[in-house]
């Protein structure tokens, strides 16, 4: 049965079941999108039973039950305290963070949960989106790799809840017996939630190593897991790849870290289960762990109070644990509208895409707004506070709106509007007029969170994707570290689009809806070269010349850099608390002119500098004797140049008073020098001091600082 037909049939079954039950109590504890399944409306409004079969929202996780019986809904349940609620006792808990539980439930279970006094709130397990070198040195990680003893993330678990991992990739293997062959795997465990029904399939390190030893791939061996999307492999490569598959030195941030990979279905309950799985494995091994979540969506209050975010915050609240979340790539996607309550009225348009649209609106509790929605065909629906429209067939599409029908949200006391548009023509315009009571503070915020609709007008502020607004997590935006690269298809040049050092337009902006600074910091995210999954098919333009790495962009990549950096910190101190880690990272984050123009909402506290963080915490010698001279490094992105040469520097910027880049001709004569103090990159236009172009040939270069000299590098100018 195809996914759509299955969903439609289940939806119909759920609705018939719900209607037969009549009005259900405790609906205020149930997310508005789930209330459509319960098929009831509060007494304060005219009850409108669904006149058409909408089916469950596309974003909600639903599975067929055992033997094709009653369909199951994925739920996240927040309880009053850590002991299970009565209604949960009969259910199978997929994961529990303490007061947040991930479960599968029937409609009957959902009704029981809604009526259970110990249940605070029930949220659907919603679909979120996956988010899509130079960079490792740029964050100071190479300096930690270079000191003696090197700090490379040994003894730390890096967990990725993502699209999976190419477990056979050499970047995740190591040579344990010293025979020159990387027969061992750094992957401690794989959980593929998409295989084998509700429970998924688990593979151990031994399973992986057995298949590697026998030369069996995913179709033949024990491990049936693969990563067709390649995203999880790329993220893991950035954070914990050792670059051994390539001669290009594409080493990840924490190349000695252990890895736990979860291939998730990207539903919020599964994500929570995945995080807990990583921490469980780490606890079994007695190791600290950092979990990377390069994913997110926009359903939620954007203030850290969604059940998923509360669960994540609980999971991270322990020493030796950290969770890093990508900020999101929606700053330029026109998915957010905001209006100060004090303005009294405003209007925005929803420009429908070719998919079903779900939108959430939030505004401060204690205030009231009224919505007037005009369909593309001109039908007008008035939606006052504490009302629900029911399912309305309008000229231009089907509309369902729940405007705080059960009162203010139990999660945060604010008011939520849930709006769903189905069967609208692509590019059709729905107009939403908002009238507020002109409260002095607070905003009305609206986010598209399902479908490909856009808002007009829109704002980039407050576009941090959930769960990036959660407390106890480190939320990461992107910077640009590469705008051109060599690929299998030749040079790719995006310098007209991306300016190295700056923040890309896609990187989601803060603050959170409750005014906290997010993202916490920014890290390299644009066109990062990292491990490429064998199972993914990419255009040659995105494949590195070594064919084992690929280029990808997004705050996902930024989060992976920070996850790797956190692994380095945890390898230095396995008992660091999440807030200590966050404080270390943000207090040592750097700012420079290239992000100075960015508002704090975009850059957070600055660019990640893990070297500075390690020094700040006293893990690395603060003095100048040891081993800084070995830490002065200069590299070229491409040693073959014809018009410009782009140098990347690695040295303790904050403690170096002078840094001179020197370039020598083949005989060793000084041909060019430039003061590069305080800079991490420099582009030489290949013009000599006397104004002539440097002739073709071999050149040497080095970086001279007052803390030491770099190794001599070589480059070739080919006119």
């Amino acid at each position: 049965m195809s996914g759509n037909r299955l969903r439609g049939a289940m939806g119909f079954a759920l609705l018939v079941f719900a209607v037969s039950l009549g009005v259900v109590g405790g609906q205020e504890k149930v997310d508005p999108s789930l209330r459509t399944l319960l098929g009831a409306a509060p007494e304060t409004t005219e009850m409108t039973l669904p006149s058409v079969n909408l089916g469950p929202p596309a974003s909600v996780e639903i599975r067929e039950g055992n033997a094709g019986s009653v369909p199951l809904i994925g739920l996240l349940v927040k309880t009053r305290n850590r002991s299970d609620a009565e209604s949960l006792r009969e259910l199978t808990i997929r994961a529990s963070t303490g007061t947040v539980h991930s479960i599968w439930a029937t409609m009957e279970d959902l009704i029981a949960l809604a009526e259970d006094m110990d249940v605070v709130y029930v949220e659907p397990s919603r679909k979120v989106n996956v988010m899509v070198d130079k960079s490792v040195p740029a964050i100071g990680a190479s300096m930690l790799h270079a000191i003696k003893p090197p700090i490379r993330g040994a003894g730390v678990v890096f967990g990725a809840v993502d699209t999976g991992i190419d477990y056979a990739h050499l970047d995740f293997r190591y040579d344990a017996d010293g025979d020159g062959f990387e027969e061992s795997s750094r992957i401690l465990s794989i959980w593929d939630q998409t295989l084998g029904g509700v429970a998924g399939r688990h593979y151990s390190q031994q399973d992986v190593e057995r298949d590697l030893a026998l030369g069996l791939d995913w179709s033949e061996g024990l491990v049936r897991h693969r990563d067709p999307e390649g995203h999880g492999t790329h993220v893991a490569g950035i954070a914990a790849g050792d670059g051994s598959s390539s001669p290009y030195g594409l080493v990840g941030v924490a190349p000695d870290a252990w890895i736990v990979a979860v291939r998730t279905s990207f539903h919020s309950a599964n994500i929570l289960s995945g995080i807990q799985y990583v921490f469980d494995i780490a606890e079994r091994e007695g190791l600290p762990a950092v979990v990377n979540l390069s994913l997110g969506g926009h359903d939620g209050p954007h203030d850290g109070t969604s059940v998923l975010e509360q669960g994540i915050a609980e999971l991270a609240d322990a020493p030796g644990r950290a969770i890093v979340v990508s900020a999101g790539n929606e700053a330029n996607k026109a998915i957010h509208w905001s209006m100060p309550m004090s303005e009294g009225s405003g209007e925005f348009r929803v420009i429908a895409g070719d998919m079903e649209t779900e939108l959430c609106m939030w505004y401060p509790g204690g205030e009231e707004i009224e919505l007037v929605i005009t369909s593309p065909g001109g039908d007008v629906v008035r939606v006052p506070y504490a009302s629900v429209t029911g399912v309305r067939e309008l000229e231009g599409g089907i509309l369902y709106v729940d405007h705080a029908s059960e009162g203010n949200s139990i999660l945060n006391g604010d008011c939520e509007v849930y709006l769903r548009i189905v069967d609208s023509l692509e590019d059709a315009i729905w107009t939403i007029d908002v009238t507020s009571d002109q409260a002095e503070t607070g905003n009305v915020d609206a986010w598209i969170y399902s479908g490909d609709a856009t808002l007009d007008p829109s704002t980039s502020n407050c576009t941090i994707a959930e769960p990036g607004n959660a407390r106890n997590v480190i939320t990461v935006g992107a910077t640009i570290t590469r705008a051109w690269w060599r690929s299998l298809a030749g040079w790719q040049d995006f310098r007209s689009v991306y300016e190295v050092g700056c923040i890309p337009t896609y990187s989601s902006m803060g603050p959170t809806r409750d005014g906290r600074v997010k993202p916490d910091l920014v890290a390299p995210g644009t066109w990062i070269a990292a491990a490429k999954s064998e199972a993914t098919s990419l255009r040659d333009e995105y494949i590195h010349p070594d064919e084992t790495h690929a280029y990808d962009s997004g705050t996902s990549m930024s989060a992976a850099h920070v996850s790797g950096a956190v692994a380095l910190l945890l390898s230095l101190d396995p008992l660091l608390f999440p807030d200590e880690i966050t404080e270390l990272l943000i207090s040592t984050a750097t700012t420079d002119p290239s992000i100075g123009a960015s508002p704090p909402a975009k850059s957070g506290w600055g660019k990640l500098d893990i070297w500075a963080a390690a020094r700040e915490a006293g893990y690395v010698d603060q003095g100048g004797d040891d081993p800084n001279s070995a830490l002065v490094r200069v590299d070229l992105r491409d040693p073959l140049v014809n018009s410009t040469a782009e140098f990347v520097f690695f040295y303790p910027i904050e403690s170096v008073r002078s840094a001179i880049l020197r370039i020598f001709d083949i005989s060793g004569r000084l041909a060019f020098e430039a003061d590069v103090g305080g800079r991490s990159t420099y582009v030489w236009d290949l013009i000599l001091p006397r104004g002539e172009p440097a002739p073709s040939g071999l050149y040497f270069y080095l970086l001279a600082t007052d803390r030491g000299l770099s190794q001599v590098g070589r480059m070739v100018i080919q006119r």
Partner: protein
Amino acid sequence: MAQPRRLLVLTTLVLCVLAIAISQQVRATGSLFELGSSPRLQGMGGVGLALASGADATYYNPALLPSVDSWRVSSSYALHFGGVSYGTIGIAGPHLGLQFLLLDSGPIVGMDAETRYSTQGLVGSLGTRIIPGVASTGVRLRLLRTTAPTRKLGWAVDPCLSLEFGSLRAGVIVEGVASRGFATRRGGNEPWEQSVSVGLGYTLDLMEDARVAVAAELRDVFSTSREAAIGAEVQIDWLTARVGVDGVGLAVGASFTAREMEFDYCCVFGRAGMGASSRMRLGIDLRSVFRKQQETQD
């Protein structure tokens, strides 16, 4: 007849010098040839224009080839500044010299990409006396080929002159009088460097087996990037020690002579953090070898 020919040669050389002097100075293709070929002379700061002898004259000043009195072969090797292999092999005799140079960088790995630089040079030189015991002239043909990262070929012709006044010698070389540079990616041509260099050398025999030589050069005299170099060596019997300085840095060297064989070593200490680079060479005087064979046959 000889007098007009000498005048013609000298006039041609002077005109070449003037042409280079008034032309715009451009940097050029032949970077391999800036490395020099002789560990002996590189140990003196590369001051070979007035001081080159034997096989070194092929490279440094072919006008000195007429004073070479036997055929010699030599081969040198250097791990240039720790990362580039550079070797030469050559043969030279009276009036004629040939030298082959080979440089290979090995893989040069960048953060995102990798390359290699591999180039070969051939130097063919001729020298003749204009005024015996006073002046001689010569011409040097340089062929340069790169095979990595791309294949390119170029050549240059360099006339030169040597003047002798007892123990004092002067040398002049005019580089790139005629040349063909490398084709560029944009369809242009990257010319060879045109330059004029002059040098003075003085040799003083202290006793039967002891000798002192000093030399100085001014390179690229008409350019803003002109450079001075100075060097000296002391030979006592089979051992020679030398020192010199030029734009690359301070150089020291030594030679050991044993019968028909000579071993040269030099070390150049680069400036501004470049580190040191060592070279060594083995040379064999073929006349001594042939004479030995002849004596054996007799």
